[in-house]
């Protein structure tokens, strides 16, 4: 297993190299540059050209790429062209809200979706099943920002239970931290709940029709241990896969959710950087997301061996 993990970790190096090349090249080819955004509406062409030169945007592609790669290899992601703050510092500054949001959403989603899926499979064909599936369809269909606006309007503006926007760091206490994250996490978890609930239901239906479940029922076991001990464990591999894949959804969803709820996270950082063409920040954040995605896939593969002992690497 250790050998496998080591091999997988080492395999991230060429993958990250390809990602780095693609990200840099795409940004190079994309029209627009930060100089015109920095200079503003009233700037002359000469002003913009002066800033382009200062940023080194007038230099050849290969020189820029080589320099950037050299710095990356030394752990230096560069400096934001707007704020002059190192990209690493910006990422660290924005990591807490995004990680908090993702973890909270993940916990919330799994806690809601897995029982929902199990319940729907157990009561397949009944009104409970149809209600769960209706929720799943709605969760997939309604855009995150619409759910976000609705939640903010009802639960923040009308009822006053939560703040409309903003983020309270963990250092300000668990209460304020949870209050600031609950609405964004609820909005973001809708699609995720729908995805996990549907997958759980489908795999549970398959498992519940197997002979060993029928035997357990015949032995007079209660429904609860049958569903959650015998069936769910064997239905877990596809569910774990979906949870892993869903992290990519969360990253995408966090971009929208952080904008609607004004969370100073990595999603907002990415959007702002793209709109401003802040190249070092875009490159740094995408590299980080790629790395996280590879690591999450590795964790998912390791979890397989825990939930299904037949799987060996």
């Amino acid at each position, binding site marked *: 297993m250790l050998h496998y993990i080591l091999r997988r970790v080492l395999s991230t190096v060429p993958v990250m190299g390809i990602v780095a090349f693609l990200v840099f090249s795409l940004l190079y080819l994309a*029209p*627009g*540059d*930060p*100089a*015109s*955004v*920095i*200079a*503003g*509406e*009233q*700037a*002359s*062409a*000469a*002003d*913009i*050209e*002066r*800033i382009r*030169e*200062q940023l080194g945007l007038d230099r050849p592609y290969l020189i820029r790429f080589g320099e950037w790669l050299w710095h990356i290899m030394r752990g230096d992601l560069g400096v*934001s062209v*707007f*704020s*002059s*703050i190192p990209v690493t510092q*910006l990422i660290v*500054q924005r990591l807490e809200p995004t990680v908090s949001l993702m973890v909270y959403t993940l916990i919330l989603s799994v806690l809601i979706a897995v029982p929902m899926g199990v319940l729907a499979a157990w009561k397949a064909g009944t009104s409970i099943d149809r209600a769960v599936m209706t929720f799943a369809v709605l969760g997939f269909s309604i855009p995150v920002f619409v759910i976000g*606006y609705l939640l*903010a*309007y009802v639960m*923040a*503006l009308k009822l*006053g239970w939560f*703040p*409309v*926007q*903003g983020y309270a760091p963990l250092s*300000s*206490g*668990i*209460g*304020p931290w*949870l209050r600031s994250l609950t609405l964004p996490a609820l909005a973001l978890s809708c699609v995720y709940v729908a995805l996990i609930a549907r997958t759980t239901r489908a795999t549970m239906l398959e498992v519940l029709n197997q002979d060993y479940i029928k035997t357990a029922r015949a032995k007079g076991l209660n429904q609860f241990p049958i569903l959650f001990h015998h069936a769910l464990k064997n239905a877990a591999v596809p569910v774990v896969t979906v949870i892993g894949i869903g992290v990519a959804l969360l990253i995408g969803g966090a971009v929208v959710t952080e*904008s*609607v*709820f*004004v969370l*100073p996270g990595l999603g*907002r*950082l990415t*959007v*702002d950087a793209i*709109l*401003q*063409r802040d190249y070092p920040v875009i490159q740094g954040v995408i590299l980080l997301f790629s790395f996280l995605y590879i690591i999450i896939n590795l964790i998912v593969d390791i979890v397989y061996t825990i939930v299904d002992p037949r799987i060996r690497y």
Partner: protein
Amino acid sequence: MRRRDVLKGVALGAASLALPKVVIARPASVLRYMPGADLAVLDPLASSAFVTCYHANLAFDTLFGQDTKFNPHPQMVDGYVVENDGKLWRLVLRDGLKFHDGEPVLARDCVASIKRWGQADAFGQALMAVTNELTAASDKEIVFRLSRPFPLLPAALGKSSTYVPVIMPERQALQSRSQLISDPVGSGPYRYIHSERVPGQLTVYEKFADYQPRADGVSDFTSGPKIAHIDRLEWRWIPDQSTAASALQANEIDWWEAPLVDLLPLLEADPNIVIDTIGELGDMGIVRFNHLQPPFDRPEMRRAFAKMVSQTEMMQAMAGRTWDDNVGFFTPESPMASMEGLPIAQSEPNFAEIKASLAAVGYKGEKITVLDPPSSYRIHTLTSMLVDQMKRAGLNVDVVALDYANWAQRRTNRDTPENGGWNLVATLLPGQELWDPAGHIALRGNGGDAWPGWPTSPGLESLRDEWLQSPDEAARADICRRMQLQAIQDLPYVPAGRWTTPTAYRKGLTGVSRHIPIFYNLKIER
């Protein structure tokens, strides 16, 4: 880890939710302000963004200030004398001026700052062009030796619009302009707090305890005593307009600079919110030609085209509420504005006639490339109306939709549209910038050095020079009248109307300035 330990941890976490809130010591007063755009650039001379101009007026001080009618008054300057027939100016700094790092403000800081500003600003460039020598005669005295009289020197050094002639420490002012200043040190009544900045989210300023307001004069716009009544200012950028509206209603922000017109009825219905039009000079619509590329390289084509730009239609789509049509090249309230030569186009143009006149000046259906940034709603609205009018006039329009960064960059491309250039853009400039020829970048005719569009008009340039040297307002107004007539002939651009955007703040905020958000002399009661 044992299950019991995990359960214990969860129980402790849950219990902490029920604990009484920890009372955090807060400053006596905080203003939470949402600007019209994110403050992306802190260097006051690097970006012409309006929000950077507000930041410049807040964290920095200027030698002269302006009253609400844009008349200059001494601010950092205690007094000044003019000698040698207006060619020698001696400015003396007042006592007690300090930078936010605790260092005293010296004349050499001012000299370096003025020189830096003189490279960036059009008014500054005009002043520097007649300055033979700018020196610090002592720690307190700044001396200008000019080649010819420049009566507008106090107005130049007191302007509050882009680029503001801010005073910064010599070490920052001498820094290359190519290098952005990311941790600016000013000497204004509020101090920028670099350690609390979250780019794209939060900018914080605190009252500068060592600031010495003027002892004389009346507080009016950027002139007179600048009193910081509020201890802490938090500029919170909320990118989503609906969220901003909810935040204002929920008392999570105090002041929203520029709400969407569509959201005004919602905010007006809230008895705790005041809707106020502080930017009475508003924004002026501009239809800018690329003078380097056909067909708008020919003045007769520009003049035929200008007849179809109905300001009424443009403003109805743009503002919905408070707008003016039939405006010329200067802000209507300015003493420099006149009705000379107006209107350029009728409210309801006769498009059949315009089509014929375009054909008569040689338009043969060539494709006209118009740049449109849909993400920038104000420019997009103006562009959409322009395109509609062009289609009704029978022009062959090619609309190129781009995001703002790309739009801004492509606008500087002087090449043909096929090679990444353009023929037309619709845009806007604040009315304050179009008050007179000094900062009116759209009315320059200096060719390749001009604002994108690059018009060449020796007539406009010569009149501008005459205006800068003119000794009194009546003479200056007459020159502007002639400038308008010249502009209607050369058409560096077509005026597209003027509109104002209301601001929204919670009740309890008093002393809100006119024109642009100014944070000193402002009070808040909760």
